[in-house]
């Protein structure tokens, strides 16, 4: 396979490398950190990195959704919950479970193997066409919303129904009277 210089978006690849490094380090810190809030904040860094990767692929709508849902809502609620219940400053000794390595490491490796296989098998030599000039992103947004509201309308409704059920369930559980 010949790699022609004109085929490679150098700036994008450098950006990808930097962001991916931050994401991997952040992800490691999530499981390694002995402080719940630090772990959560590292998770924020990973989420933000994912949003940045979407931006590099000129999928701006997905990137913004990632920020709005995961950073703006999920992580804020997560931190809110943690701080309301066990917001310990400093180290939390019983947070890390050292006995789980024997089970955890093989599972992690298996997961890595399965995901790499699926991704490589699924896309093989496909190249992502980055055409972020002019109105390409507007067209991409339109295509995305068309897909959601036509061919994927039924799964979309099913998902909304499940979420609604979850919300009502939460209210029923939380109400004491």
């Amino acid at each position: 396979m010949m790699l022609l210089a004109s085929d490679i978006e150098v700036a994008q690849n450098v950006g990808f490398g930097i962001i991916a490094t931050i994401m991997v380090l952040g992800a490691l810190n999530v499981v390694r950190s002995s402080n719940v809030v630090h772990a959560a904040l590292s998770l924020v860094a990973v989420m933000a990195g994912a949003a940045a990767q979407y931006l590099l692929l000129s999928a701006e709508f997905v990137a913004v959704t990632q920020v709005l849902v995961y950073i703006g809502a999920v992580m804020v609620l997560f931190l809110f919950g943690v701080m309301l219940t066990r917001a310990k400053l400093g180290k939390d000794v019983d947070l890390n479970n050292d006995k789980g390595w024997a089970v955890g490491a093989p599972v992690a490796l298996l997961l890595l193997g399965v995901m790499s296989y699926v991704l490589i098998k699924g896309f093989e030599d496909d190249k992502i066409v980055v055409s972020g000039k002019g109105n390409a992103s507007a067209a991409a947004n339109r295509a995305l919303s068309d897909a959601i509201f036509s061919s994927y309308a039924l799964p979309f409704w099913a998902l909304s129904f499940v979420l609604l059920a979850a919300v009502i369930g939460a209210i029923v559980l939380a109400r004491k009277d």
Partner: protein
Amino acid sequence: MGVLAVDLPYWAQSLLRVLGGTVAVLLPAGTIVYLFLFKMMSFMQSRLGPMEAGPYGSMQLFAEVGKWLQKEDIAPARADLKVFRAAPLVVLMSTFLLVAVVPFGPDAYFTDFDAGVFYMLAVSSISTLGILMAGWSSANKYSLLGGLRAAGQLIAYELPMVLAVIGVVIQAGSMNLQTIVIKQNSDSIFGWSGLGYPYILTQFVAFLVFMIAVQAELTQVPFDMPIAESELVSGYMTEYSGFRFLIFFIAEFATAGVFALIASVLFLGGWGVPFSWFGWETAGDIDNWMNVGGPLIMFTKMMVLAAIMMWVRFSYPRFREDQLQRFAWKVLIPVSLVNIMLTAIFKVAF
């Protein structure tokens, strides 16, 4: 920056954008603080306000900044230093990210973001994270309570803000802020185009809901439970002093300015004047001087909106925590949902 910067290399354009963004954040913040916080509040309370530094106290801001910069950088002994130091920067970052999407003229914008409205709503929620970080890392019960209150409030008031904006998006048929501005100035009301078609006329309810939600998002009176000084010293900012407090302070008023800019874009026609005044038909006909005049027009509209926000801030007493939550969930959200429904019906009918 199409026409203006077409000859500049990329690095120069980027430099210009960074400079422009800094000006767009700091200039409104400074003006709001001096004009409204120092002077208007003083006059409303029958006093003169700062008079010593410079003519009529106009150099007071520089004196204040100098004072803050000289102060010692103090952090509580048990504070989580890394998070404590990062928190004000996260809040300020959210402000800078917000301004990136605001258009100031036909070619004078930072990014022509197609999902601009959506981006604006997403990015404004990042400041909540910074406030939670500040509240937790200070190792202070008042701070933690303030941070938690702020988070609860910001989550509750983000919804009405999103829902209010949807009315405008339906009417404009676009989430691009630039398109929304151009639409408002090129459309006509029943064939009469002397005023353009600012959406405040048809979306007045959405405008009210948006401004109330913005007031709550900024944790300004009457929604300032997170920093309620009579209960919580000053909430999540209690332990901050010197430069770090200054960053929080700048972020608060800069965000007020940026939200006023966004409100003027969504409801008042943004940088534009009605295009029929100068015989422009489409966005391509706009004269180049609008790239200079546009920011000035935006600034004027922003000052009017900021004045209203500050006026409310200086006039009303504080809500109680449960009243605040009830107001968001039982009044603002239903009202904006009805507004969306009516807008959609009218959009389809006409």
